Every structure is written in C-alpha cells, then in structure tokens.
C-alpha cells in the first residue's frame, strides 16, 4: 500500500455516482421512544463500494439508525432494502449473516476473551456446528475451527494485533481495543460495514492511520462503509457522500463540499445567528 490516506482521499473515484449499484436503501424510517422521536421519516441510499458519512449533532439519531440497521431496534415505520432483501423481515441473529457488520460507539468487546477469540466470534454467523457436534467433537467442528482461526489470524495480522492475539481484550489500551473491534467486524466478511465513531478517543496520529485504514479496507475487502463520526476532517476527507441528520430528520445530502456549505447544516451545528 504505497498511497497515503491523504492522497487516496484526493484521488477519490466517484464510484457512487457512476458505477455503483444500490446496496442499501433506507425508506421512510421512523423510530419513537415514548414521546421522543429519534428518527423521523429518514430516507437515503448507499451505493455499493461507497463510503457514506453520517453526521449530525449529539442526539440527532445517528446511532439509533445504526441500531435499526443491525436489528437491535425495530422501527415504528419504514422499510429497509439491503442487497435485494427486506432487512426488517430477517430475524435478529441472521442479520450478521446477511452481510452487515458493525463496530460500536463505546466499545462492545468480550472483555474476558482473548483478541483471537473475539475476532473468531465475528465469524460466528458463517459457521454452524452446534452443541451436539461440539460435545462429540465431530469432524465438522475441527474444520470450522481451522477456517475461523485462519481467517481471524489474517485479520489480526492486517490490524497489527499479532503480539496481543492471546491477551484478554479488557487488558488492552483503548486504541488497540478499537482495532480489535474492527477486526471482529471484518471477520464476518460483511458487504456493509457500519462504523460508529471510530475516531472517538483516538489521538491525531491514530486518526491519520484510521483514515488510511478505512480507505484500504474499502479497496481490499470490497466493503461499502457507513460512517458515523464527529471528527469532521475525517468524515469530509474519506466520504464519497455525506448525509446530515438533526433531531431525527435528514437535513442535507450530497458531496462533502455540498453538505459543508449547506445552510441547514451550518445552522444545526452553529445555531441560528438571526
């Protein structure tokens, strides 16, 4: 990988506009918690191979949308089409199988498990040996374990985690844990990767590395990425398209430059001067 993150961002190919097939279509999603409207009739599309940045002030509904996409919340209305399937009719635990992987805003790792097992659990949905197979250690178990370990070790090497592969995750520094989460999300070979504030808590250097990593993952693993992020410089430099939410509504959509200039976005972030 010779190109740096910054260069890659500058020579960004307009995948979304010209060649991209529609991978994810969010249509009129609304989520209410009691009297609070977390998402209000939100619609947008994500094209295959695209990096779409989702921005908005705190409480705008970004994480709620992620939780709807990973089937942790059931929306009150609306429809989601993912890769030709109606996502909302797939049972929760089949969601990862369908090809959506994610990371969490405040790390959601399995703290007592070593890094390797965390990443292997990411591939849980592509294996199927259950209690009976395991109790007798039938050949299927050995085969699946070998494949899972191999795939996990590849990702561990890719994310520079080899030295801590057998360390329980809870004992690792924050930045390292974030890389473990990324490896775990990639272990399911997702078509769509949801990254919830991957830059939060990282220092300047780590954010530079993260930018390069996001671009490299997209290219190397043919992943479409939906990125929630407060770090504006990062969002604007990696995203092909940006969607802005405020109070659960979509207030702007377009290229990073367009969204940055959009009066509604400026008002949401800086307040109304009049």
């Amino acid at each position, binding site marked *: *990988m010779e190109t*740096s*993150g*910054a260069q890659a961002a500058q020579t960004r190919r307009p995948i979304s506009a010209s060649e991209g097939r529609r991978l994810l279509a969010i249509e009129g999603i609304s989520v209410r918690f009691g009297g609070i409207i977390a998402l209000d009739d939100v619609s947008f599309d994500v094209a295959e191979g695209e990096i779409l940045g989702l921005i908005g002030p705190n409480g705008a509904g970004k994480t709620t949308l992620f939780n709807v996409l*990973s089937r*942790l919340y059931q929306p009150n209305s609306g429809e989601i089409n993912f890769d030709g399937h109606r996502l909302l009719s797939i049972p*929760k*635990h*089949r*969601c*990862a*199988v369908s090809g959506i992987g*994610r990371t*969490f805003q405040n790390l*959601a*790792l*399995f*703290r*007592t*498990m070593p890094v390797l*097992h965390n990443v*292997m*659990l*990411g591939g*849980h*949905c592509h*294996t199927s*040996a*259950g*209690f009976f197979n*395991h*109790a*007798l*250690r039938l050949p299927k*178990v050995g085969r*699946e*374990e070998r494949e*899972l*370990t*191999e795939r996990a*070790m*590849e990702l561990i*090497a*890719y*994310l*520079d985690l*080899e030295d801590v*592969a*057998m360390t329980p995750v809870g004992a690792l520094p924050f930045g390292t844990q974030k890389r473990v989460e990324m490896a*775990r999300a990639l272990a*399911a070979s997702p078509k769509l990767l949801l990254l919830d504030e991957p830059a939060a808590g990282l220092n300047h*250097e780590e954010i*530079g*590395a*993260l*930018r*390069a*990593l996001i*671009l*490299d993952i997209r290219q190397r693993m043919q992943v479409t990425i939906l990125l929630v992020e407060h770090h504006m410089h990062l969002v604007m430099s990696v995203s092909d398209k940006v969607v802005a939410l405020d109070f659960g509504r979509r207030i702007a959509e377009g290229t990073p430059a367009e969204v940055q200039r959009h009066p509604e976005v400026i008002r949401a972030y800086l307040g109304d001067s009049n």
Partner: protein
Amino acid sequence: MVNETSTLAGAKIAAPGPRAQISPRVWKILGILVILAIACILPLGLSNYRLFQLTLALVYAIAILGLNILTGYNGQISLGHGAFYAIGAYVAAILMNTYNVPYWATIPIAGFVCLVVGFLFGLPALRLEGHYLALATFALAVATPQLLKYKAIANWTGGVEGINLLKPDAPAWMHVDSDQYLYYFTLAITVVMFVIGWNLLRGRVGRALVAIRDHPVAAEAMGVNTAYHKAMAFGVSALYTGVAGAIGAIVVAYVAPDSFDFLLSIFLLVGLVVGGLASISGAIYGALFIQFAPNFAADLSKAAPWAIFGIFMIGAVYVMPGGVASFVQIVWDRIRRMLAPARGT
C-alpha cells in the same frame, strides 16, 4: 503522514502459524494423566468409607461442572440446581425400583429428562436477569422436596420415605468390592462428562456462551442466537447435574425428599465459587471442598462445625479470590518462571 499511516494500512496479510505454545499444553496433558493415575490407584490405600466420600466428590464435580456451564461461562446464576440433581436422582431410582431398568441405563435417561426440563425452565428464565433469576431458581430449590412428597405420585416416589435401592455388584472379572467398583464406575463417567464439557466449552459454542455473558448486545449483533444458547446452556447444565444426581442415587442406594433441600443448591454454588468460575478443573477442586471441608470442620469442633466451615469459606475466597483453579494456575506459572532462566542458561 505517509510513514505514519503505512504501519496500519500496510499489506501484512501473510498469515503466521499459531504461536508455538506446545510446552504448556504438554504440561497440562501430563498433569491430567498423573492425576488420573493417582485417581486409579487411590482405592488401594483408602478405607471403603473414604472411598465412598471420594465417589460422592466425583458426583459433585459433575454437578458443579454443569452449574459452571450455566453460571460461570454463560453468566446465568442458579440457586436451584439441587432441584435438577433431585430430578436426576429420582428418575434413576424410579426406573430401577419400579421398572427394573439396569442401573447404568438410568443415567442417560436421567440426563435426557433433565436436559428437557432444564431447557424448558430456561425459556421463561430468558426474561430474568441477575437477582431475579436467582430468586426464580431458588423457588425451584425450595419447592422440590415438598413436590417430591406429593401423595398422588407416592406410588413412584415413595413419599416421605423415599426409595431404597440395591447397590450394584461389581462384575466378577474386576476382582473389586462394590464400593471400589462404584468408585471406578463414577470415575469413568466423570472423565467422559469432563471431556464432553471441555469439547463444548473450547469451541464455537463455548465462545458464544462467554460472549453472551460478557456483552449480550454485541453477541447478538455478531449473529449469536442468544435466546437459543441461553436456554441450551440451562438444558446442558441441568443434564450434567441430573447425571450427577442419578449416579448419586446409585452410589448412596437411597433417595428421599429431604436429601435434596435447598442447602444442596447452595453447596453446589459454594463449590463453584471456591473451585473457580469459568474453569473446568475448578469443578473438581470445588467438589473436594464441599465434600471434605464440612467433615474436616466437624472434626475440629463438634460444637460449632458450621462456624468453622464458614471460616473455611471466607478464608478460601480471601486467599484465592479467583477460586482454587486460578490460584493453582498462578502458583504454577510462578514456579515455571522461576525455573525458566535456570534452564535457559
């Protein structure tokens, strides 16, 4: 910027082989073989009464391993495993007494019955967390002895009197007496149950159970069917405890409602915590503790054995906060580290 970022995003896909960790593993296998060898020659040097106690310790070890699958690995607390032990014991006793089923054949049947009962109990328990689950399982423990006395089923259960059984004789070719035979019989089943437990817990199923304990939401998002795994953890856990109950009935040759009061459930939990949560070997240490510590306490003081036993418990968790299993691991690691430089030079 270019150099800074290249470490993270750089191409390093060359997969390394699993780290060379052969030596601890070989040590572990050697340790297990040594312990097994000792377990096999023990009957030669022990009185029949001590051997009987040791047999019961093995029975408890199976039960505690079962509880560990549920509580230690999957994070669901149970204060009612004595109930599953009782069900296993009664299924075995009734099959032997009323239906003349051979004693060895009652064990898998008792296990299967408990698997089904445990799974069914695990389904509503899905809605309960932490303290509430503790209460629900405790209810099971306090209700069981009285349900066993229920008149309508007294024809099978023997009511308050319980059921007296015949101790199985040793096969002639083994040249051992009945107590020694039951010890070897129990030891063999214990080994089988521990190997199955180890198989279950070290692979995909074990990872899913621990993942649910550590972070249920993330586990669900990774595609783990948490409801199914939690209910199955309950079922498998009950299966283990039921198998233990069945062997217990055969070894003691007697079942009665009051042998399965709630104290049994609490003792299993004590054994689990003292031995070590989420540790397979911990089940053995915990079983030895609940089997022998009360006797030892009674030897020390006839007047206040429970007070002495209480001191043992507090002492155990104070000195070995992670349970005996993790204490043994720490000591063993320290010994190896002390030996390592000497060997290196």
